[in-house]
């Protein structure tokens, strides 16, 4: 059995995110933290999960984490590789994807994501990379999982730009815009697992990772945190989960000459 000193907050985040995926899922994998979680799931409890990267690789099974969403490793291990227009039209827009797994530079309590600009769009303080596939991943996948580290500058009261729509201002905002998919249903951070309130759609803490208390969650979050009536403790990583993640990262570092992969 592992105890808290045996693993890092980042490892707990990746493993908690991996647990949310199942064998039957068809998962559109976003760049960054989601990729590690999706591959840990595939290498542990969900060997038959279908992982799709927006470069057109369907059913990929990389031995090391890719540095970009179009590494050769993804294509070589995929069931098939399709063109980018086909990926977005037939597979994403066509409704074939069950889970979209995204990271975020900035998020608000309703799971709206900003990866476009900090500050004003026309005169940005910081120009971030932009949305890429995310605006349509957020609305075309049946549901969306988000994983990111907590910090007051990234979990904010108001995001500077709506790159990808979550639950808007909450409640039935998605439905009012004609969006029929569920949107963000899960947020996994380095401290907790959050789920949207069924009515208001505000993200609510349902489980805290081992050794984390409510203050730690509030201090790293820019809005007043709501906790579920019964907050559970996230089970710590099992030996298998930790070993799988660490071996994957070690293989990745060897393959990429010291860079950890995404």
């Amino acid at each position, binding site marked *: 059995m592992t105890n808290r000193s045996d693993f890092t907050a980042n490892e707990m985040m990746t493993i908690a995110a991996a647990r949310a995926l199942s064998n039957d899922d068809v998962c559109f994998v976003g760049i960054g933290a989601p990729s590690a979680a999706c591959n840990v799931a595939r290498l542990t409890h969900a060997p038959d999960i279908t992982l799709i990267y927006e470069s057109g690789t369907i059913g990929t099974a990389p031995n090391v984490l890719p*540095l970009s969403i179009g590494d050769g490793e993804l294509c070589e291990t995929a069931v098939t590789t399709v063109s980018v227009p086909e990926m977005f039209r037939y597979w994403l827009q066509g409704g074939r994807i069950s889970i979209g797994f995204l990271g975020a530079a900035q998020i608000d309590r309703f799971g709206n994501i900003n990866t476009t600009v900090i500050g004003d769009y026309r005169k940005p303080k910081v*120009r971030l*990379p932009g949305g890429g596939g995310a605006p349509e991943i957020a609305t075309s996948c049946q549901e969306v999982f988000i994983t990111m580290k907590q910090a007051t500058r990234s979990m904010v009261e108001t995001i500077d730009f709506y790159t990808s729509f979550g639950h808007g201002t909450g409640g039935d905002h998605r439905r009012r815009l004609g969006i029929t998919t569920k949107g963000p249903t899960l947020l996994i951070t380095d401290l907790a697992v959050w789920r949207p309130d069924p009515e208001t759609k505000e993200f609510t803490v349902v489980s805290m990772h081992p050794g984390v208390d409510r203050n730690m969650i509030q201090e790293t979050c820019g809005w007043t945190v709501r906790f579920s009536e019964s907050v559970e403790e996230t089970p710590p990583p099992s030996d298998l989960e930790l070993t799988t993640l660490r071996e994957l990262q070690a293989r990745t570092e060897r393959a990429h000459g010291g860079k950890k992969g995404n």
Partner: protein
Amino acid sequence: MAKFQSLKEAVAENIRDGDTVAFEGFTHLIPHAAAHEVIRQGIKDLTLIRMTPDIIYDQMIGMGLAKKVVFSYAGNPGVGLLRRMRDAIENNWPRAIETEEHSHAAMANAYEAGAAGLPCAIFRGYRGAGLKEVNPNIKSILCPFTGEELAAVPAHRPDVAVIHAQKASRRGDVLIEGIVGVQKEVVLASRRSVVTVEEIVEDFDDLHPNLCILPHWTVTSIVEVPGGAHPSYTHGYYDRDNAAYLEWDRISADRDLFMAWMRENVLDAGPEVFAHRVKGL
């Protein structure tokens, strides 16, 4: 009908000041050698279209060639931000650039519409997205059969497409393998095209019948440039040079360092250096 040319001739004949040019390659087969030739020739006031601008557009923007950039993800893949593009957007250095920003889905659909000869692309997208508030080229259209509101963007119809591919046959047919991205669409959407290839082979007689092939009569110019995608990769030939992408983050962070690097590695170099750069990858 495809012409076999030197890179210098192909770029000079096909790309002119003020053109709209799309360099494509989705993390794979990125036409770096061709972009460097455009920089050497100093072709300016370009409208540059590309889903993922990455290093080649960072270099072209930093050298002052771009008037406008149409894009959907402006990052150094797996590393971080594009520092030259940011400097142009945030500080107008070395010149101000216009930007037109889309999502990947919109860009891919716009290329497909261009290839299909349609004036616009229609798709289910941009719902709740902030881009439609800041980009007047994102509009909506009602389905005449169901009444569903859908997104519409203009088709991409570049003057020139520039891509890199694995092989051309002596006849000028072009083979693209692996992550094929939007390369077929961008060539068919454009008036002219420049294709660099790893090698020219006699014919394609022994290939699988369903491979991605651009027939010779759809391509304007073909140039053999071994290693021409470096530091991106060519499936079946060489791997991605991840160290070069990390190094770019350091070089591009400083204007003087950037200019010095461009002089040594681009302005004072030629396409023949690419074969050397991919040795051992």
